[in-house]
């Protein structure tokens, strides 16, 4: 289901990433102030944007889950948060490396952009422990959705508040793109943004395919064992995905692990 068209998507992502890297290093000029160090910009900023968008998407999927009670939306939200956390770690690492090269320090606690992003990451780091703390799958999914919606709403609010801040060192990239960035910088930046978004979508679909296949296998195992109560999922933070004969149905089958 999610594996459909995954191969062309993966190939497109690979091509887009390769093109981005080639253009970033061999076509886009060096920044007048940052010099070659500015090349981190093409990695760090699109990653941050995609990460935050991923968190917002998780909140939207959680809304759909609460409205429909369809466990597939819970799984979509879970995978989006999981993947965005991975991307978020890359944002923090690449940002720290850039800060060391540009500012001379790995981290600056007085910088609102950095601290606010760390806060968002720490907030989402509690998502998995929250899920794991609740044993009942139904209640777990419901509480996790409420968390994803609340945290998803916090992300844009947090972004706007940080933008309103007057004391900052961190470059205001989004404002600069349309106003100050020369043509080549803009082209590579937008291409990089598309590449990172494609990478996120590809990995999201990849993980969804894996989770779905795992749930289908469990359903098949129970069917062949002839015992409906057998192989119930052990306690897990992973959502319980409902899989029926046609791929999606009512029988609760865990995609745990």
């Amino acid at each position, binding site marked *: 289901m999610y594996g459909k068209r995954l191969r062309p998507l993966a190939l497109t992502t690979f091509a887009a990433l390769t093109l981005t890297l080639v253009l970033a290093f061999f076509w886009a000029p060096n920044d007048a102030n940052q010099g070659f160090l500015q090349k981190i910009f093409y990695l760090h900023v699109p990653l941050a944007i995609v990460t935050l968008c991923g968190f917002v998407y998780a909140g939207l999927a959680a809304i759909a889950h609460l409205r429909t009670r369809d466990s597939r939306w819970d799984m979509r939200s879970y995978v989006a948060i999981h993947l965005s956390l991975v991307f978020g770690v890359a944002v923090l690492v690449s940002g720290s490396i850039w800060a*060391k090269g*540009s500012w*001379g320090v790995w981290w*600056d606690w007085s910088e609102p952009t950095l601290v606010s992003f760390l806060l968002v990451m720490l907030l989402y780091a509690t998502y998995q422990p929250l899920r794991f703390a609740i044993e009942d799958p139904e209640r777990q999914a419901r509480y996790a959705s409420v968390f994803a919606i609340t945290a998803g709403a916090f992300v844009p609010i947090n972004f706007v508040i940080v933008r309103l801040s007057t004391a900052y*060192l961190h470059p205001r990239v989004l404002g600069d793109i349309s106003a100050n960035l020369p043509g080549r910088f803009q082209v590579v930046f937008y291409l990089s943004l598309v590449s990172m978004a494609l990478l996120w979508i590809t990995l999201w679909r990849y993980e969804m395919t*894996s989770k779905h296949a795992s749930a289908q*296998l469990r359903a098949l195992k129970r069917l062949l*064992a002839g015992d409906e109560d057998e192989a119930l999922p052990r306690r897990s933070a992973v959502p319980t995905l409902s899989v029926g004969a046609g791929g999606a149905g009512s029988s609760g089958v865990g995609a745990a692990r």
Partner: protein
Amino acid sequence: MIALHLALLEIPLHQAVPYVAAAYIAFFALILIYLAIMSGKLSRIERELGELTELAARRPGSSEEHDAP
């Protein structure tokens, strides 16, 4: 210290290269670790599929049983 760094004009290439390389390597390493974990999960699915195939093969006359009213 930060103000001092900002005051400097273009950061020399030989100083910037290790930082840029480290950032990109860290990113691709993270993605590779993620893919390695996912491929481990895929291997487990494959193994479980093999177990299921054996289980299905061991079931005597399973097709007749399903056809029965």
